[in-house]
């Protein structure tokens, strides 16, 4: 075991996969010589060479397309899109191509590409460096969509994603890169070294896709969440003195319906929380599933917590961010209902 923040854990996952499997290549803007703007690929080009850790032009459509072509030729590319906000020029190649190559060729061709991309706000990124577009990708048949909330899961999930024969879009909540974050920007930052999930095995291990984690078990209410909102939800429930069951989905596609619904059947109350905008967000899908599966066990209407339906504003970042107050309002609404 070693102390790792999320950046080091992701780096370790890629290091291990580059060492273990000669077909793994990394590619992206600034990821090679420089090691990435968030330092996630630091040292890997020096270790594995510039042919396996490729700096690329600033052309996300080209990056995704080239990764697809490489995967058809037997490589297993891990492409970094520098910010999730920059992924849209590659959208057509992801949605119309990457996601459907196995389907349209009846399984003769497949594209084991992992797309890593930092997402979410809380770093003063304004409307072009803060988005959480996971819901746009969960809507696409043929893509797996992953978002870890801590170093241990980040490494295990990334290894699983790279080894997976299906394409994976892997979102990294960048506010969590250096430490767990409870939503209060005025508190001193807590490093991962002070958190059990910052203890990461140095070798190869996997965390399965489609398996949620119950981060805290409780009896009063179920909070279904992922990414940045996991620690916000924990803190908000603790502040209210609620015995909340907090579920970190970890992967959105495939979705662990059983863990979600078993919990809601037990607590009878449910809050769904994500940082992404609310309207047509992934939360709506979770809510639908819970309603369909657990309606007769529900004691109160399900509540949703999300970012406002505006672009992510630079100056009003903390008014936008779904912090503890917004989660608390939802928790109260769902637990105080008769």
């Amino acid at each position, binding site marked *: 075991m070693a102390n790792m923040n999320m950046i080091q854990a992701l780096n370790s996952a890629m290091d291990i996969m580059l060492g273990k499997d000669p077909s793994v290549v990394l590619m992206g803007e600034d990821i090679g010589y420089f090691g990435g703007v968030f330092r996630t690929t630091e040292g890997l080009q020096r270790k594995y060479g510039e042919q396996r850790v490729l700096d690329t032009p600033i052309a996300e459509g080209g990056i995704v397309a080239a990764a697809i072509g*490489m995967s058809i030729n037997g490589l297993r590319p891990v492409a970094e899109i520098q910010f999730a906000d920059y992924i849209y020029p590659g959208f057509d190649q992801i949605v119309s191509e990457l996601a459907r190559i196995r389907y349209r060729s009846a399984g003769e061709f497949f594209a084991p590409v992992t797309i890593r991309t930092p997402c979410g706000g809380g770093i003063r990124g304004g409307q072009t460096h803060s988005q959480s577009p996971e819901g746009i990708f969960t809507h696409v048949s043929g893509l797996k969509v992953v978002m870890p909330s801590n170093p241990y899961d980040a490494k295990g999930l990334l290894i699983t994603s790279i080894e997976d024969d299906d394409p994976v879009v892997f979102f990294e909540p960048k506010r969590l890169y250096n430490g767990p974050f409870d939503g209060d920007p005025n508190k001193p930052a807590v490093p991962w070294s002070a958190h059990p999930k910052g203890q990461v095995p140095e070798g190869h291990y996997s965390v399965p896709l489609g398996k949620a984690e119950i981060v805290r078990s409780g009896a009063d209410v179920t909070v279904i969440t992922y990414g940045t909102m996991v620690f916000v939800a924990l803190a908000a429930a603790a502040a209210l003195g609620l015995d909340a069951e907090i579920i970190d989905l970890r992967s959105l596609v495939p979705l662990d319906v059983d863990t979600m619904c078993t919990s809601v059947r037990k607590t009878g109350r449910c809050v769904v929380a994500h940082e992404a905008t609310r309207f047509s967000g992934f939360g709506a899908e979770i809510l639908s599933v819970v309603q369909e599966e657990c309606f007769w066990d529900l004691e109160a209407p399900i509540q949703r917590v999300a970012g406002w339906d505006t672009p992510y504003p630079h100056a009003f970042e903390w008014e936008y961010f779904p912090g503890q107050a917004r989660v608390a309002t939802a928790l109260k609404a769902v637990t105080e209902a008769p």
Partner: protein
Amino acid sequence: MKNRSRLHVPKAPARPGEAPDFSYVHLSPAGAISRPDINARARDIAFLSTELVRVLDDAGTAVGPWHPHLDPSDLQIGLRHMLLTRIFDDRMQRTQRAGKISFYIRSLGEEAVSVAQCMALRPGDMLFPSYRNQGLQIARGIPLVDLMNQTLSNTRDMCKGRQLPVMYHSKAGNIFSISGNLATQFPQAVGWAMAAAIKGEDHLAASWIGEGSSAEADFHHALLFASVYQAPAILNVVNNQWAISTFQGYAGGEQRSFAARGPGYGIAGIRVDGNDFLAVYAVTQWAAERARTGAGPTLIELVTYRAAAHSTSDDPARYRAKDDQEHWPLGDPIQRLKQHLIALGEWSEERHQALTAELDALVGASWKEAVTYGTMSEGPKLNADLMFEDVFKDMPQSLERQRALMRAERG
């Protein structure tokens, strides 16, 4: 009058009711263009991107430095593949009109592009076709029955009923799955070529798009990545003058040739008579040798003419001069190769007729077999359960559940 800015709206040279006009097509005389060394630097051979490489002259004689000196038996194979492509297309067009298949796209007049290029490549080279490259499938020896089964979406459809007709693929034949979205395959081919170079293999990737879809960002990504990494790729723009009703001026062809995009990106660009089997073969062979020897990628513009409608859903009489194709200055690829072989004493009208009859029979027999595996309206049917397979490698629970719901719906 005072000079002022103006909006230039490209005008097609001839619309219905107007006389065909191809004076805009720059032609070089056959044999006139020099053949640079395969290691020449892109910047030193930019002239290739604005001239027109031609080998066959008007009399059907092969002339000049690009003459590939192919064995007559290879030329006969090329003629056979082209003729088979055309007869296959005609048959499929008729089956669409008879309501047996939903849609079809012919490659009439462009057969030399796919056939000559495929023959100039090696079996291990990976092809990333567009939807008008059926000649690649035929030259790679994909059985006609397999192609027909795909267009029928029948029980032997390679795509299991998931793709529009003509969106073939062949893993064994090294032909990538055709998307149906335009230009997406172009940068993918470059990625494939990059991987070949990373792995140290001497296979190359070749891809095709129309001049119309060269307007897509994917075209530019392909050229950029090919240039940056000097990928062993051959990128082909099939300039058949028309993108449905939009003539090539709307893709930027009025101001500069499509091949000239190559030198703009620092890669070799070469413009070739796309209806001249020998010239297409020679240029492709030259590009392939460059790719295999580390001299990098080549952009080839194949100047040809879409003699048929865009697809079975299209009627070109509504937007272009009726007898356009008869005035196309580069003629018909099959006629020209036939004329050349006859001039060589290696072919005759009689042999041509016999070959036509043989291929007609082959296509007819293939169709007869294909329909026994089902058509859209009769015979055996694909199981609709197949819809849920291959979305992922392993079927997730959510799709298993939906499959059960669909079965229940069907009773």
